[in-house]
Each structure stands twice: as structure tokens, then as C-alpha cells.
């Protein structure tokens, strides 16, 4: 049942560029897709370990800047009159570096904050994002500050035996984002269903008990933070090479809030939740724009969010799953009662 839904959903998503020709809508889908990847990575922390990272956009932004700088090159002064010069590398190397460096940042943030956790983790992540934003804004020599990094090259895939394929069209970029999103989804799914995912769940439900059966809290949470940050970094890299211009505004708090909304409305702790929530709240502004004044759009956006949480308080996916699940379990219960009755009658 679940497998069928997944296959249909993937096929539907893969078919979109074949019938949707409007570049504006396709663009909206691509940026939404990039944010869905970010939301999935946030869900790994928030939904499966219960730790709220309110600076999650920092990892996304770091991925974007690392990837952009790797492919643009830079020339900066160091103390002592030295200069650090980096000649441009292919964008695909930037993508890989973005994942690695965002993951490393996740490691240090996790190491710093998971000894205390909870509210402290929230504060550390907010501060981290703000510090990184200030660095991006003020280290003009490296980041161009508010002038933004421009002319970031599109991602080029080295094809064996052929020349490079540069992903310039919307359709190509759509498929790139879709593939990365699928990989991220599979990775998180594997992780959550593994022995490691059970350790995360145990910690979230009853930390004292989890520790008593030998689960290492700091290690488990730090690994989750590293993987989460690395996936967010990958999303940031895709963003930089698709939009092709980034400025420190990418670190804005509202971007983290958007990801949190996607996760909570779709259902934290469910794999498909951030995808469903992300598609709704990523595409909602696009849907509202032609029919409403800008002020009214945000009111409607808030209204939809409140309505979803009011009707489906645990998020869309878990609430619906529970509703259908209950119907099914009632059916099996009825079946077993019938069986028991038949069995009771037979010996007579």
C-alpha cells in the first residue's frame, strides 16, 4: 500500500516537466523542491530526535556559499601579508564540498550544544545562524557582502565518454533537484529504520531508559546533526547553482521558519511529512499571488497554517495515516471476531 503510493507520487513528480510548460511555475517547483530537501533535513533532527534547530538555514547558507566560492574562486588576504588564492573548480566539486563542510559545521554545533540540549540547542543554533550571516555580510573580500556573489555557474555533470552536460534549462534543473531529493529521502528513510534510527527514537521517548540499555546520547544526536546539516548543505548548493546569485539574506530567520512550518504542518517524525508540507507551503504563495493583494496573501498563508494544525494537529501525514490505519485495524478486528465465531460454532 505504502509502496504503491510512493511509486505513484514519484512517477507524478517525474512527469511534471513533460506537461507543465510554464517556466514561472516550473521555477516555483524547483525552488520549492530545494526547500523541501532542507525541510527533510530539519525533520531528521526535529521529528526523530526532538531537537529543534532554529538556525537550520545556516547549514543551507553555508552549503550555498561554499559551493559558490568553490566554483567562482577567490583571492583573499591573510594576516602577515599572505594571500590565499583559489582558482575556480567545477561546480560539482563545490556540491561535494558544500556537503562536507556543512556536515562539519553540524558536528561542531552538535558537539557544543548536545551536552545540554533542549532550549540550549535552540539558542545555540539561532546564534550560530546569526553569526554566520554577519560573517557573510561583513567579510566583503570573500563574500562580496551585500553586493552578493553573482554569475555562479550552473552545475555541470561530467558524463563518461561525452563532453560535460551543463544543466541550464529549467527541466534539467528540475530533474537534478528531484534526484537529489529522492536520494536524501532514501538516506533518511534507511537511517530512521536502522538500528541507529531506533536509538534516536528511544532517546526522544524516554532518555533515561534509552541510556540504561546502552544508547550513547551525545554520539547519537551528533551523528543526526551531522547528517541533517550535510543534507541542508546539499540543498544550499543546489540553490546557489540554480539561482546563480546569493547574498547574506539567504541566512534570514524567515527561511528557517518556513522550513519549520513545512515540517510541522506536514507532520514531524514522518518521512513524507516535510514533502507534503513543503509542497503546500512552497507553492501556496505562487497560487495566492494572482488572486490576492500582497498583504492578504500572508494573512491567507497564516490562515491555511492555522486551519491545518487545528484540523490535523499532528500534521497532515501522521493524522491521515492514523485515520486510515484505524479504519483498517477495525476491519481486521471485525474479521477476527467473525473467525472466532465460526470457530466457536464448528465443534457443535
Amino acid at each position, binding site marked *: 500500500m505504502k509502496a504503491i503510493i510512493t511509486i505513484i507520487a514519484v512517477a507524478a513528480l517525474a512527469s511534471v516537466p513533460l506537461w507543465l510548460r510554464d517556466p514561472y511555475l516550473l521555477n516555483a517547483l524547483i525552488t520549492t523542491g530545494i526547500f523541501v530537501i532542507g525541510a527533510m533535513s530539519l525533520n531528521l533532527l526535529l521529528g526523530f530526535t526532538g531537537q529543534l534547530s532554529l538556525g537550520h538555514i545556516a547549514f543551507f547558507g553555508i552549503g550555498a556559499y561554499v559551493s559558490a566560492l568553490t566554483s567562482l574562486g577567490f583571492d583573499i588576504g591573510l594576516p602577515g601579508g599572505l594571500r590565499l588564492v583559489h582558482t575556480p573548480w567545477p561546480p560539482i566539486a563545490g556540491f561535494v564540498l558544500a556537503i562536507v563542510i556543512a556536515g562539519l559545521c553540524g558536528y561542531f554545533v552538535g558537539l557544543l550544544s548536545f551536552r545540554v540540549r533542549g532550549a540550549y540547542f535552540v539558542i545555540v543554533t539561532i546564534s550560530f545562524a546569526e553569526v554566520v550571516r554577519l560573517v557573510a555580510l561583513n567579510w566583503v573580500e570573500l563574500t562580496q557582502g551585500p553586493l552578493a556573489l553573482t554569475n555562479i555557474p550552473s552545475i555541470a555533470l561530467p558524463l563518461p565518454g561525452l563532453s560535460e552536460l551543463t544543466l541550464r534549462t529549467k527541466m534539467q534543473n528540475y530533474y537534478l533537484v528531484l534526484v537529489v531529493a529522492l536520494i536524501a529521502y532514501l*538516506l533518511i528513510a*534507511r*537511517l530512521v529504520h*536502522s*538500528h*541507529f534510527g*531506533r*536509538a534516536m*527514537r*528511544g532517546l526522544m*521517548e*524516554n532518555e*533515561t*531508559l*534509552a*541510556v*540504561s*540499555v*546502552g*544508547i*550513547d*546520547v551525545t554520539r547519537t544526536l551528533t*551523528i543526526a546533526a551531522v547528517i541533517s546539516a550535510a543534507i541542508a548543505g546539499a540543498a544550499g548548493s543546489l540553490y546557489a547553482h540554480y539561482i546563480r546569485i546569493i547574498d547574506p539574506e539567504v541566512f534570514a530567520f524567515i527561511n528557517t521558519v518556513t522550513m519549520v512550518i513545512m515540517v510541522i504542518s506536514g507532520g514531524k517524525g514522518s518521512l513524507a511529512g516535510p514533502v507534503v508540507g513543503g509542497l503546500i507551503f512552497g507553492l501556496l504563495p505562487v497560487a495566492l499571488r494572482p488572486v490576492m493583494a500582497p498583504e492578504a496573501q500572508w494573512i491567507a498563508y497564516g490562515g491555511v497554517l492555522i486551519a491545518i494544525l487545528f484540523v490535523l494537529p499532528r500534521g497532515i501525514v501522521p493524522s491521515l495515516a492514523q485515520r486510515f490505519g484505524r479504519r483498517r485495524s477495525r476491519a481486521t478486528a471485525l474479521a477476527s471476531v467473525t473467525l472466532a465465531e465460526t470457530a466457536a460454532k464448528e465443534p457443535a
Partner: protein
Amino acid sequence: MTARNIAMTIDQVAVRFGGLVAISDMSFTVGEGEIVSLIGPNGAGKTTAFNVMTGFLTPSAGRVTYRNTALAGLKPHEIADLGLIRTFQRTSVFPNDTVYDNLLIGLHRQGRVRLLDAILGLPGARASERKLRQRASELLEWVGLERRAHDAAGSLSYGEQRLVGVALALAAEPSMLLLDEPVSGMNASETHRFVELIRSIRDRGITILLVEHDMPMVMTVSDRIVVLNYGRIIAEGTPDVIRNDPAVIEAYLGHGAGRA
């Protein structure tokens, strides 16, 4: 008791919370394969002693040694790695998971595969996963919860949740099990079955330290009993000795308990 090898030594342990003395100068040993009970009135320091032995609390003085390893400074999960596993008085299950999944979480120590292997679904990781599932089913059968395997642990009766707690502890493959009031909230027949379970655990070579209020149960199951009162050991010995110890009768069992 001299014939047994000593599994755990509690040596002059004291715990003070500010001015309050929870435990003072407590020393006793537990032999390999023995069932020892720690009893005493409420507030005597039994659970505090448990917390010290499992690393949840650092003693103000003294030391605890398990199989020649000093436990000072070890974190709870590191103590669990030594095979010393406890159950809890209250928080005993992962409430939102099924009983079966509870046990899979409890099997954490057995299922350590490399993270990358698990993500890639390599054969090694899969084989380990199959083994864990097999083991979880065996454990369910052992404690008699097969029928509840797919119910959320939080929805079980109190007595059944205690069994899940014990199964979880067993899942961690203990060489010594510390049970904190396991039969509180159980009715007579559940308690009776639980005594059988404790014996079957011991028969597999697992040392047991028990904190319990249910006197008849303690008297039936224990090889040896240690009695605490106001943080001090006031008596130690076999159930027969304890039953007739005047200090115990006065401090704990009350007057006229000689017939217990």
C-alpha cells in the same frame, strides 16, 4: 557465599544531598549468579543505591566495582556496556512504540553495525537486523508477552509494562540485572509468574539485585537479603536469618512480624 566469585563490590559508599544523608557507609557484595535483595522502609536509600551502581548518580564517597572494573566516572551507557543493566521504578517503556519495537531499541548493544553499512543496506547489516528480530521474538516469548507484540507499550497494563521493562533490560544482554521494585502494581498471580521469571533469568547465569517492598516475594526468591534503614545497613543474611533478626523486626517489619 565464600564459594562464589564476587560480581559486585559496594565499598563504603556514601551519598549526601546537601545536608541530607541518603546513604552512609554502605558496604556489601553480590556473588556471581546470586539473587540478592535490598530492602528497607521508604526513604531508606534503596533507589539511591541503585542510581549509584548504574552511574546515574556519583557517590559522595566510596567505590563500586563490577567484575574488577571501578565504576567511578563511567557514564550510564558505558556501565551498560559492562553488562550491568537496570530497570526503573516508574519510567519503564518507550510508550509510543510497539512492544516489539521497544525490544528492538533495547537490543541496541547487540545491533551495532557501521552506520554506512546500515544506510547502504549491506548484507552484514541485513543479517544483523534479522538476528535482532529473531532475538526480540525470543525475548517476548521468554517474558510471556507474545500476544502484545504489536500493541503500543504505553497502552499496556501496569503489570505488563513492568514485564516490558524487564524484557528491555534482558535485551541489553546483562550479566547482572538490577530490578527496582519490579512487582509493585502487580496482582498476586502476576507476582507469582514474575518470581518464576526471575528464577529463569538466574538459571541463565545472570546475577540479580532486587529492590522490593513485597516481603513474601522477597523471602521466596532471595538467596540473601541486605536491609537498609536510614541509609545504613542494619542486617544482612539469608531470608531465615533476616526473618528472625531482632533489629530488622523492630526497624522494618514491625512488632509481631515474627510469624511472617
